[in-house]
């Protein structure tokens, strides 16, 4: 597994390696890849730092893993892969919270819920958005979104 984004804002002196235990295995991460979530995630308000883990066997899914607060690993997917044509617009205050410009490239991730034997669902109502330039992210909850919290992500 490798980290997909790099946090250049954190000090790099000393040991930057980080042991990460996820539901999907144990991995080595780099502290420079930590993404700040100033408000955590709803239900996981104490989780303020996350890493994104990717692997070929898991693609196009990735793992969004909290390195502090309650143990939390989320499977995530690009919402446009889950639903072609998916669109989510950031409000001006949300853009400001991300320290993003109008033309900033943002990383969008939708949280996946795996049923034990049933179908998987993806939360298109409240995607996570990350500004890779600032290594900061949060879960967006647009007031007027018509996308469902549980959009079926079917397996034959």
């Amino acid at each position: 597994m490798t980290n997909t984004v790099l946090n250049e804002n954190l000090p790099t002196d000393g040991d930057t390696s980080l042991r990460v235990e996820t539901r999907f295995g144990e991995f080595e991460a780099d502290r420079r890849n930590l993404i700040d979530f100033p408000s955590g995630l709803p239900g996981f308000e104490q989780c303020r730092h996350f890493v994104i883990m990717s692997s070929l066997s898991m693609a196009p899914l990735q793992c969004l893993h909290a390195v502090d607060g309650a143990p939390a690993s989320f499977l995530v997917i690009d919402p446009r892969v889950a639903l072609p044509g998916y669109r989510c617009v950031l409000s001006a205050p949300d853009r400001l919270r991300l320290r993003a410009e109008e033309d900033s490239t943002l990383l969008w991730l939708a949280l996946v819920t795996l049923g034990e034997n049933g179908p998987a669902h993806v939360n298109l109502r409240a995607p996570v958005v990350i500004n890779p330039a600032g290594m900061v992210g949060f879960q967006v909850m647009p007031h007027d979104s018509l996308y469902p919290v549980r959009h079926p992500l079917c397996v034959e």
Partner: protein
Amino acid sequence: MLVITRKRNEAIIIGHGIEVRVLRVGRDGVRLGVTAPASIPVHRTEIYDMVSTENRAAADGVASPAILADWLRRQIAQAGQ
């Protein structure tokens, strides 16, 4: 819980810079205006709770993602053809 009576156009201040003002009082609802710094997210409680519940379910999943990942890759390959 702190309980305060407010009339239309009256407000309360929470901490520094968060103001909640009563804009309209109707038969079925009260319209509130919230002024807060951009760093303070404001959400309807039921939406925050719904997302919170879904996040906990997402974090608690025990099934292996391998089958789903494999299925998704095949869907993407088919769509690309």
